């Protein structure tokens, strides 16, 4: 067992974890944050994407011990209470999800894009999202949602 001190969705978390426990297993099983989904488990589908120190990370192939001293954002930490994040709002309005299993990963991946690049082109969105797979929507609604979310985030509140 190894002790880790981390911040998850703004809260301090200190736990003893087995060295082989992945970050995905840690947030899902230890913390009950089941919004992080596991699918390909080979770092190609993006369903397990979380944000670590501002960067998108595949939680399926990262170890829990590697977030010691780091700041982790999962999908559960994105909304401000009942106030949805503009990306979440845009995904709803554009029907950018069907089964929804890939949705947390897409939304967090979109957040890391828009945090760096508030005015992305469609090509920027496609390039940034190439590591996320959606099997239901055919992607077009997702692209539209991310572009629209960028507009909403730039607009004065």
């Amino acid at each position, binding site marked *: 067992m190894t002790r880790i001190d981390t911040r998850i969705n703004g809260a301090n978390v200190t736990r003893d974890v087995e060295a082989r426990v992945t970050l995905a297993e840690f947030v899902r099983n230890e913390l009950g944050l089941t919004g992080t989904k596991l699918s390909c488990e080979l770092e190609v589908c993006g369903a397990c994407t979380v944000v670590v120190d501002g960067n998108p990370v595949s939680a399926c192939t990262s170890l829990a011990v590697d977030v010691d001293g780091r700041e982790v954002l999962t999908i559960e930490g994105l909304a401000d209470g009942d106030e949805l994040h503009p990306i979440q709002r845009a995904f709803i309005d554009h*029907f950018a999800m069907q089964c*929804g299993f890939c949705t947390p990963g897409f939304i967090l991946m979109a957040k890391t894009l828009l945090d760096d690049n508030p005015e992305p082109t469609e090509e920027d969105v496609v390039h940034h999202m190439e590591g996320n797979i959606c099997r239901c929507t055919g992607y077009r609604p997702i692209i539209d949602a991310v572009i629209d979310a960028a507009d909403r985030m730039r607009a004065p509140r």
Partner: protein
Amino acid sequence: MSIGSSVSRVDAVAKVTGTATYAVDVSAPGTLHAHVVRSSRAHARILDIDTSSALASPGVVAVITSDDLAGLFPRFGHIVADHPILAIDRVRYYGEPVALVVGETIHAAADGGDLVDIRYEDLPMVIEPHEALAEGAPLLHEEDYTLGDASFEEAHSVRDPSNLAHEADLEWGDVDAAFETAHLVVETTTDYPMLYAYAMEPYNAVASYDEGVLEVVSTAQHPFQVREDLARIFHLPLNRVRVRSPLLGGGYGSKSYTKVEPLAAVGAWFTGRPVKVALDVEGAIHTTRADSATVRCRSAFAEDGTILAREFDIVFNSGAYADNGPLVLTKAVMRCMGPYRIPNLRVHGRAVYTNTVPSSSYRGFGAPQGNLAGETNIDRAAEMLGIDAADIRRRNLVAPGERHLPGRRGMDADLLADLDIVVRELGWGNEVAPDHGVGFGCSASDAGAFPVSTATVRLFADGSAIVLSGSTEMGQGSRTALAQIAATELGIDHDRVRVIQSDTSATPYERTTGASRTTTLTGLAVQRACREVLSKLEDMGAEALDVSVEEVKTAEGSVVGPAGSLAFDQVVQTWFGGRMGEVTGVGIVRRSGELQELPPFWEVGMVGVELSVDRDTGRVTVEHLVTVGDVGHAINPAMVEGQDLGAATQGLGASLGEALVYDGAQLVNPNIVEYRVPRISDTPKRISTVIAERGDGVGPYGAKGGGEGSLNPIGGAVASAIARITGTWPTRLPLTPERVWEMLNPE
């Protein structure tokens, strides 16, 4: 009015905030975790299984093999119960479950799994159907598994021992005579790839077995069908088996019927504790896949392009166990010929057992395999006859009401109008850019499955309502569409309606969630349940208003009488004498009345593509995708378009990139790195999802189903577009860059 408007999905907030619950998210205190030990041989006798080292491994609670299942019915399968829960004496494909290691954690179970020592004696294997059908081929199954259950009407048992899992035939007219006198005969043989549906949530189930009641939460599309298999295994009455399906992380047919539920259930039965089986993608690929197919199509034409006769020979590689393969084959036989006027037809289909992963349902359900051969055959004929590809179809498509299959429902769609939409959107007939090509195609599927649905609607004392349905929400949006239907019927706002689904002990019976049936058939059941609620409210309202029931009607959430009205909440409260009570309505759909004729509806597929090819690499770009959603009446237009784009995208995956590949005994690509599904960069540059609403369905408000149609003709459309660019007719999918480059650069 909720119907016809693109209201937000009722599950959307949960899905964007991470609170949506899928089966894999369900856990109970004390749950054990199971690891499936799989066969490392394609076909072998099991000589011995040594579990002692595994049992001694830390955290391992039990190791279960078929020897431990004494007293249970050890197999499952809704058509042919040929599928052992755990291999019995013999394995029939690489990856077949042989042992279940149950541990305190998944890691403990997996560690134990590595220590299970299985000794095999290899048997000769057959991977391809032609090997399995050859004289003297090793037989996969010699037992008679017949259940004596006649629910699968089209199944006929194969009497002589053979590797045929199922055979299906369809014939009318004098085919041979028509071929002899035809102006032109065109023959096309195509191979459709072996596919993996890749629902992103892999198969999983958690089971508990307490006091003679088996409870399972799983990824089942059809929880009521899984209940049947589990009841047979454990010799339990149906009321002691509870199967629940929460939100599914994708289904597309691949979660139809029983998959991992028996494994979790025997784990719980054996250990006395809840047991969870959660497969990874590799395990899921080794559970089911879709049938690959070789289809030979011959068609006879008159000089003007009129079809005189068609003949199809369909061979499916159906894998080691029947699963739903027999029904998929039967549907392929019913769907291959296309919605054309065909005076003489002969179709012969064979589903062949091989030592490969069992095949089962996948979106389109036998249609895409045959359609590829049938539609490219028509395009080739048009080219040879010098007739426009749209005109040859116009000449042969059936008219509204016309029957293209004797004894089946007449065509409940205007196919000529749909075709006109496709060719107009594609700009068919205009000159295309260099290295660009256009293709399009048609299909019609006998959809809706067998029409049995029930629904319950409960209207509470505050005027809000709950719909109970056994139909499963797997992303298609049924929870939203059923709420819209109930809200419209009851005359209340759709967010005053909640839909609770898929719990065999709490929600009423639903046969299946497949064949694009939910909006049409479950929708009808919900509509009828609402009408029963309204009828009861009229009785109750009349009593409360002290008038006769003939004098009242319901409108916009109230019972209206000659001299006053009462809102529904007031009706319930007045009748029960306080803020209590509820009104329940039941809606039943069965094969009668308008639904006597099968299929319940024809699901139309009418699509087109414009493609471009990079001559240096062979890479194909989708410049334009056109779909027509001929759904009668779109309950939620945005969701209809979402279904069409999603279906077409899966079709593009099969056409351009996806294929499971066997090399000897094993799959070489059982993962999402090497099995390449469409990525965001593959999104067509331009997309036209058109909805055609003509109110011609049997469902609520003239609706009929969608969701599969726009997949079915994609393969043929892509193949024809590539042929028009390269000058060579493709004979197999997927058209990977390598294959297209080879077509551009023949030796």
